[in-house]
């Protein structure tokens, strides 16, 4: 049977992708950030997951305001890196896992989560930057990816609680799939940042670090904080952090943190990264 072995969360700042693609990882500005992912790449090489269910948000790329799905599951065979207005990132196409994705869709909808099914969409930096951070710059991604796009652009996004419960439903779905697959769930975006208005540039290190602590040991309680607290304490775009709760809901109640990294700034954003293994 398929199983979920670990969860990862990481920010997905577009400037990180631009720095990687532009060969700037050793610049003084970027070096400390990329150093925080060195452990992760080694850890990942030993884990060899078959599939990553990657929770991210589209940034007005695949979805305009014509259609705004709250949860959209990528069930296609292949997803192309999007042209976000300055040409697509020079990264490999993302290979999906249509069989597992179809299984998850059917199982999760029958558990009362009304997913939108997407067979064709391009994926933006929200999905490709985390892949680059965890796998570097290979010719082909060494894993299949099932994208789960969450609306966090048009308010209101789903609640933290709903995201956490969706993670639990995804876990039940994965564990009922016949096929011996090692699956990871990633939650991306965050941490504190605000990109708009006179309050732009907001960073809340104390709140971000408390979020890390509670994600590890009090996820149930953390999942109950209201949207208002994210927006007030972590900035209007910090609300992306609800996506980390999908990842957390898919893991055991007890988890083992094997890597934790926090860095300010990447452009306008506090970067957070955590690797959690399922404790047995």
């Amino acid at each position, binding site marked *: 049977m398929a199983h979920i072995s670990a969860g990862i969360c990481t920010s997905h700042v577009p*400037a990180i992708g631009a720095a990687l693609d532009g060969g700037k990882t050793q610049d003084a500005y970027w070096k400390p950030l990329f150093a925080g992912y060195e452990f992760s790449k080694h850890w990942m090489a030993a884990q060899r997951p078959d599939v990553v269910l990657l929770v991210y948000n589209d940034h*007005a790329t695949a979805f*305009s*305001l014509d259609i705004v799905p709250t949860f959209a599951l990528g069930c296609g065979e292949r997803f192309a890196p999007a042209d*976000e207005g300055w040409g697509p990132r020079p990264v490999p196409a993302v290979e999906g896992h249509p069989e597992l994705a179809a299984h998850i869709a059917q199982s999760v909808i029958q558990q009362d989560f009304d997913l939108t099914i997407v067979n064709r969409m391009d994926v933006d930096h929200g999905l490709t930057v985390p892949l680059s951070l965890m796998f570097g710059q290979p010719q082909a991604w060494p894993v299949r990816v099932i994208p789960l796009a969450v609306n966090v652009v048009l308010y209101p996004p789903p609640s933290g609680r709903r995201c956490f419960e969706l993670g639990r439903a995804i876990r039940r779905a994965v564990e009922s799939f016949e096929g011996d697959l090692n699956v990871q769930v990633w939650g991306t975006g965050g941490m504190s940042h605000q990109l708009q208005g006179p309050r732009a*540039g907001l*960073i809340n290190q104390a709140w971000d670090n408390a979020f890390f602590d509670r994600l590890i040991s009090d996820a149930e309680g953390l999942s109950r904080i209201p949207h208002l607290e994210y927006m007030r304490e972590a900035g209007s775009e910090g609300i992306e952090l609800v996506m980390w709760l999908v990842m957390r809901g898919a893991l055991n109640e007890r988890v083992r943190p094997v890597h934790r990294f926090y860095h300010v700034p990447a452009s*306008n954003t506090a970067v957070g990264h955590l690797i959690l293994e399922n404790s047995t």
Partner: protein
Amino acid sequence: MPLDKPYKRIPGTTIFDAEQARRGYHLNQFCMSLMKPDNRARFKADERTFLDQWPLSEEQKQAVRARDYNRLIELGGNIYFLSKLFSSDGKSFQQAAAQMTGMSQQDYAAMMLSGGRSPNGWRDIAERS
């Protein structure tokens, strides 16, 4: 019963909710059209003519011409859609953010390097009067 919108008390912040999205639908769709090189070229060649093809309000058109991002957000723009507009001008998120705060690029970049803007004093409009 009216909807509760407690986030309106967060100073210097406009949450892109359903009401803002309704107001800004065409504005945001215009911005999105700039992802296509053809549209970018037509917009750059004659901004006014390109804008007149969209059902935008005169205020929205003028705010686009002025690249007044705070005003565009007030008129229903969302930052991820507006990013297509400032990217067309060769500007980054950090440059656009600095402009919206009224700080110089240099001062804004220095603030970020020293840990960003503290939330203290920025949680509620009462703190800023």
